[in-house]
């Protein structure tokens, strides 16, 4: 079976890859591009561990085919920090201990960033519903929600 040649931009860098029709974007990121930050918890769109943004839209990369991202812009957890500087969400996750095992963390961070890009001042309820597609089995979500609210606060006062 011949592979597809896909040109895309990942975290602001142009990338090309070859993939089979059946490969998901998550497979491509992890297996073809060595970007293991996005995690596979279910491959059915239910856990959010594989969250990335495609053209600014939050998606489960396990539900997107590699061939679908031709010409699109992708952001993943690997692009979240700015050089040496962690994104405020990353810093707040650490300060609030919003991770235990940490396997859900990349997905939560990508999803939370996508929320704050749209809504810099979310209520607790808005945070909880926005993040309802991301499962965490360790934390009970309390510290995650606090970290997101705190990061939003800090980002608002910085801007």
């Amino acid at each position, binding site marked *: 079976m011949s592979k597809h040649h896909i040109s895309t931009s990942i975290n602001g860098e142009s990338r090309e890859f070859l993939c089979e029709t059946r490969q998901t974007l998550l497979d491509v990121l992890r297996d073809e591009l060595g970007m293991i930050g996005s995690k596979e918890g279910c491959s059915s769109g239910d856990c959010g561990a594989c969250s990335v943004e495609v053209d600014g839209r939050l998606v489960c990369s396990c539900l997107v085919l590699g061939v679908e991202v031709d010409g699109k812009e992708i952001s993943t957890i690997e692009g979240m920090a700015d050089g040496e500087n962690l994104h405020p969400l990353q810093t707040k996750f650490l300060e609030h201990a919003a991770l235990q095992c940490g396997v859900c963390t990349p997905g939560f961070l990508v999803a939370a960033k996508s929320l704050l890009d749209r809504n810099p001042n979310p209520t607790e309820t808005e945070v909880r519903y926005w993040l309802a597609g*991301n499962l965490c089995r*360790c934390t009970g979500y309390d510290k995650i929600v606090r970290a997101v609210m705190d990061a939003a606060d800090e980002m608002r006062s910085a801007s």
Partner: protein
Amino acid sequence: MDTKVKQSQGKLKWVGTRQVRPDGVDKVTGRARFGADYSLPGMLVGKVLRSPHAHARIISIDKSKAEALDGVKAVVSGEDFPDIAKEEAFIGEGPINFRYMAHNMMARDKALYDGHAVAAVAATSEEIAQKALALIDVQYEVLPHVIDVRDAMKPDAPILHDDLFTEGVTPEPTRASNIAKQVEFGRGDPDAGFAKADVIVERDYSTQPVHQAYIEPHATLASVDEEGKCQVWASSQGHFMVRAYCAKLLGLDLANIKVTPTEIGGGFGGKTLVYIEPVALLLSRRCSRPVKIVMDREEVFRSTGPAPGSHSTVKIGATKDGKIVAGYAEMRLQAGAYPGSQIGPAGMTAFAPYEIEDVKAVGIDVVVNRPKVAAYRAPGAPLAEFPVESAIDELADKLGMDPIEFRLKNAVKEGTQSCYGPVFQKIGFIETLEAVKNHDHYQTKLGPNQGRGVASGFWFNIGGESTATVNVNEDGSVVLIVGSPDIGGSRASLALMCAETLGIDYKQVRPLIGDTDAIGYTFLTGGSRVTFATGLAAIEAAKNCIDDLRKRAAILWDIDVSNVEWRDGVAHPVDAYSDEHEPMTLKQLAAQSAKTGGPITGHIALNAEGAGPGFGSHVCDVEVDPETGRVEILRYTAVQDAGRAIHPSYVEGQIQGGVAQGIGWALNEEYIYNAEGRLDNPGFLDYRVPVCSDLPMIDTVIVEVENPNHPYGVRGVGEVPIVPPLAAVANAIEAATGKRLADLPMSPPKVLAAIDE
């Protein structure tokens, strides 16, 4: 050599502070490598073929077509694994029988549940591996199956194992049955006790099996070279456990296996076993190439261990002034396809929080055609304490007593003999009850359709074997090597205790989890043992390092080591010598170590005893929608005795996580089997774990009643918090609706049916 260590003014500098975890940046940037994130050149994809039948005899397995497929490098099934004799061991948090473990990993003559592994392949790609699975020809003779515990106990039930005879009953049975074992705990004479009671409550309860549902599926990478040297990378709760079980199940020499721990994406007890590691090793041995097996979510649900479901009868009696005089519990646990549910811990924990003279708890282990159960956070305790805590609530209500006061009147304390045997040392149960009573949550008013419930919980906690090494670098920084995988922030708590003991900056300590060749044996992460036992090892290794540091100072000062004292990270000459020499910091001593005997280090291997039992008391407010039966958790406060919280944020996190899992157990989570005995909901869409919008903030109060057997007073904290929520939620629903729900999960249809009754 006695260790002269002084902490200035007894004040702790690091212990009890909220530092950023050492592995934090890796985990927020996507760098941290979990089980599925490891790869090797030439690696093959391993896949497992699973039984579609709940119960079937395997007539034959023809692998030839699969083997002939281009790209397939190895195909194995039960016949390729060594036969293992029955051998019982109590490891970690439950009984293990290696024969059963071997057969659960790969079916031999019978497939005993939907999802049971029957064969496996290694191929050059995922696609080829999938195709190969379809080409393996397994001939089954489908047998009648049994899913429900009560059905499995009936005399005419389909029998899973024809060599299984009930243990622990007299007379010894002559017929095989699905009842594997019966155990009993208690003391006194319950009948006499009940005769003294003014009020007695008795009821049947049931709980469903629930999955640990760690977000990271099981994953492993194995590589065997031509010499037979085996390397395994595995996401597990203990790499020494993986080594031991792989050796056992494959008949290999332990010395030939090296296991490297990956980051672990949650375990909660479910990763205290092996499922795929020996399979990957065998496949790799067959073709001398590395093989990676990663389960998908469906495989995790269909074939890895949930906590057992249960049917129980619980009876408790009290006098009218509120003293519990008798307790009786009979708990029938669903072991899954092989014997070994946690009837022991269930029997021991059921009444553990209360002082009862005449008490008996019976546990019965029953096999059914479901995946074999595994440990899940305080294994056995939630399903045992849920009925008791519900009954306590019912009794308090009948007696017209506040449920906290009623518990306080009967609570165990230091010196009480527990219902399961030992006398409690210093414990903090009463303190947790007092904290709930005095919490503002307990005083607030509730609205219509709302109710408040309280419940308590107990777990033993364990110690066990741990090894730790402290190596001082030439710049004065320190590497702490331990053998416990970091499952939820233990690198931080261990580094804090190490820094505290040495008297150096927390950031100067770099914790590292050594592979099985790099550090001495360390028992798996379970029983809430790591901060206690491996923590003790980190402290003792640091103390040995201090002894070494004092020796070095003594050499430099040319005085006897007994005249060197270690204070806050600095060696001080004492008494007569105090004016003669300038104190030396760890950094200065490290810089001169070549002159005083070489690298400075401290090491310890120990078997920690004296884990402090843990207690928690929770209060929960719910609102029940009378139209739909949906239960909303409005407010939740969990109080727990942590002995001492080394890193309070991670202690709170353990409590909050346990509460969320307990709420899922109480309200939503269950397995749905169809008439054919196949699991209908093997995914997160239909197996409903709590999501962010299901929960409120979970308030925590940490009570610190120090464990006298630990230098900083640590008790285990990870398991207790999953125990109280089941009954706390049920008691709150009762308060809101007047209906007592005794069958979990209390999902909307059940609640609605109860309201409409």
